[in-house]
């Protein structure tokens, strides 16, 4: 089938999104960004195609009882299969490094330790992907990495070998593993194995295994033709796409927001490194924009600094701020002074929730400046980017908009991280079909 793909290369994550001829979203993919843009793009694209296959499989099963459950069970087990494949590749790569002359002396000991570590991770794998298990991250690098660090530390101690050495081998190997894209046949295999595992778990679906297997086979056989791919993203390095296949991230973002919420006229995107105010017309085309991309004040990064200063997780900032009982006026949003401002206030007897609420307001004031300069706020207003998940930030923003621009519809999508990729996919479709 014809598919149209948008790939958004970001500094932390790379997103891909796949739509069909009717602009229906079939699949989304996300991976951690790598120094090699080509690989990041390819991996996220593959992930989006995987997502598409899930969607198609769901369509094939229809809305029978248990279809949804089967889907989620399959997905979990697919990820498990994926994880195991990558783990296997990681192990192979690590072992292959042991052939290097500098490891000759301790090769045996290293081999044993590494083997032990990988066996342990392997055995933990099903726990990691058990139903209801929560993970801090879905990226292989994060999961495997943290387990490896942990286990390698004790393993190295027990075996009396240098932890540094194990780390070294890991570091080299993970790069190799990450720079490889899973080929289609491997993905197919992971799907099939995943389905088998799914049926080995306690059922709860009245879909027969044979039927499911046949449906899956059909779905896997569908050729997802990459009819047109559009890349976007902000970077000093040239994006790995031919010129006609690149669209500015501002345009992609504007169109993506329009796709999610067709009534959108103003978009605010607060990313980690920049903040964008975008005005779009009824067709999702950008009519004006402003960016603040030199200064971290008002960006997600500022929250990161605050979280570090307070020694808490980024995701904890919002909930704490929501407990504020009064507003503390914070005037400086300069990240250089973030820590000082915080300490100053605490010393003056202000409470953490109150201070955090003030800080959130200060950030949103900066965002209001950008919006102001881009042309103000017109109904409907769509808010995207990581900060959109922060309830305290959203609260301040709603208030500021109400105070200064009146009542209006404020849209926030849980999939807002894919806004750029969605816009790209839409541009891809328009470029091919018109």
């Amino acid at each position, binding site marked *: 089938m014809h598919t149209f793909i948008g790939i958004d290369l970001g500094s932390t994550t790379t997103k891909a999104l796949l739509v069909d001829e009717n602009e229906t979203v079939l699949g989304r993919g996300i991976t951690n960004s790598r120094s090699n843009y080509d690989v990041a793009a390819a991996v996220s694209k593959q992930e989006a195609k995987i997502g598409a296959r899930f969607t198609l499989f769901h369509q094939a099963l229809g809305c029978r009882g248990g279809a949804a459950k089967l889907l989620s069970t399959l997905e979990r087990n697919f990820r498990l299969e994926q994880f195991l494949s990558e783990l296997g590749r990681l192990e192979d790569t690590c072992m292959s490094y042991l052939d290097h002359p500098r490891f000759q002396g301790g090769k045996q000991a290293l081999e044993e330790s590494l083997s032990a570590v990988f066996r342990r991770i392997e055995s933990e794998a099903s726990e990691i992907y058990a139903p209801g298990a929560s993970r801090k991250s879905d990226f292989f690098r994060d999961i495997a990495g943290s387990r490896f660090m942990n286990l390698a530390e004790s393993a190295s101690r027990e075996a009396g070998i240098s932890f540094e050495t194990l780390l070294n081998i890991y570091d080299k190997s993970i790069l190799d593993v990450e720079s490889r894209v899973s080929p289609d046949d491997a993905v197919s295999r992971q799907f099939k194995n995943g389905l088998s595992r799914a049926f080995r778990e306690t059922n709860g679906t009245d879909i027969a295994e044979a039927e499911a297997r046949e449906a899956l086979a059909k779905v896997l056989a569908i050729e997802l033709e990459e009819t047109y791919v559009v890349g976007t993203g902000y970077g000093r390095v040239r994006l790995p796409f031919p010129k006609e296949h690149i669209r500015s991230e501002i345009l992609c973002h504007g169109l993506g927001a329009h796709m999610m919420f067709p009534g959108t006229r103003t978009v605010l995107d607060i990313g980690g490194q920049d903040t964008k105010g975008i005005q779009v017309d009824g067709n999702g085309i950008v009519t004006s924009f402003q960016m603040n991309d030199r200064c971290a004040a008002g960006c997600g990064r500022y929250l990161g600094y605050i979280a570090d200063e307070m020694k808490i997780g980024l995701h904890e900032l919002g909930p704490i701020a929501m407990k504020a009982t009064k507003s503390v006026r*914070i*005037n400086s949003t300069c990240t250089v002074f973030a820590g000082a*401002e915080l300490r*100053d206030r605490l010393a003056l007897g202000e409470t953490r929730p109150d201070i955090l609420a003030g800080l959130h307001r200060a950030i949103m*004031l900066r965002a209001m*400046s950008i919006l*102001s*300069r881009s042309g103000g706020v017109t109904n409907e207003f769509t808010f995207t980017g990581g900060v959109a998940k922060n309830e305290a930030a959203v609260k301040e923003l709603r208030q500021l908009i109400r105070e*200064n621009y009146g009542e209006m519809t404020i849209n926030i999508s849980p999939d807002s991280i894919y806004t750029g990729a969605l816009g790209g996919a839409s541009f891809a479709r328009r470029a091919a079909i018109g």
Partner: protein
Amino acid sequence: MEARTVKEIVAFCQGLFDDLDFTRAREWKAAVPGRKVIGYMPVYVPREIIHAAGMLPLGILGGGADLEVIHGDAYYQSYICRIPRSTVELAVTGRLDFVDGMIFPSICDVIRNLSGIWQILFKDKYVRYFDAPQNFREDVGGVFYSNELREFREGLEKLAGRRITDSEINASIEVYNENRLWVNRVYDFRADFPWKAPSAEVYLLMRAGMVLPPEEHTLLMREYLAAAGAQDRPMRDNCRVVLTGVFCEQPPLNLIKSLEISGCYIVDDDFLLISRWLLEDVPADGDPIENLSRAFLLNSAQTAAKYEADMEVKGRYLIDAIRKRSADGVIFAAPSFCDPALLDQPMMISRLDALKIPYITMQYAENSGQMQPIREQSGTFADSIKLWSSS
């Protein structure tokens, strides 16, 4: 009526200062139909002519520390000072709707261009860019300036719908001579007895002069002097400093307080220069335009926005102030991005260095919140003067 205490007077002034709706000025205007209010920005405009037209001159100094600027930011990039954006904020949020005209003195390119923004945004208001001469020869700059004053007068006449007579301007000249006399008396009093007249109070008193009719302000200053003179307050072992750079965008009141808390008496400053711009009484008889013109050319204060043709004379104004007020040192406080203050500073500093007069430099914004670093800096300065000065 019973005389008010210092506390009451200051509270009254604080109320005026905090009121960004300018209620008092609105009330003044509403009291008599046909009254007009003319806003002006730093550094100097001849308020006498506005007053003679029966109008209220209203000093506009931005929105201050407590005004959140939302719309104003649409007008300015981030590398421009705050006073124009908070001033625009005041205007677009309707707080200046009762103001019939705005005067923008020639202080720098930002305020200069703001006059153009005002022309675009408020086509129905009287807008005048007030270009003071930088040539101080009576036969050159003086001729230009007198003509500018005449044009200004004509503009106000049109707005007022009546002529402004010479005798009316002369009467206003007298009123402002009187006002200036008392401003200088307050400044003298503070320099002589700084513990009796904390700078935060004096500042609020002078800010009141931006909002009140001059006659009322004069009475207020007399009241304050009497009350402050009578009050006993503890003397502190503070060092005496001249504060300079604060002639346009104003620092938060907290900054002024912080400087004093940290051990400095501000014995002279360049806040609200318009109150003391003319250094001597202006003759109140004869041709008032010529008199005002001559007063400006020959007897006015010095500031970064004013050209000094003689290199030898440059900086003398500051040094004279230091000497006159027996100051121990200078605090250069410049608003971030302020061209006049920041460009002038190296030249002032080199002159202080030559005379071995101690100084520190700092930057602020209208809404600076971080007072701790300020206190540390000025506190250390005060200490170093007290401990190490040879006097």
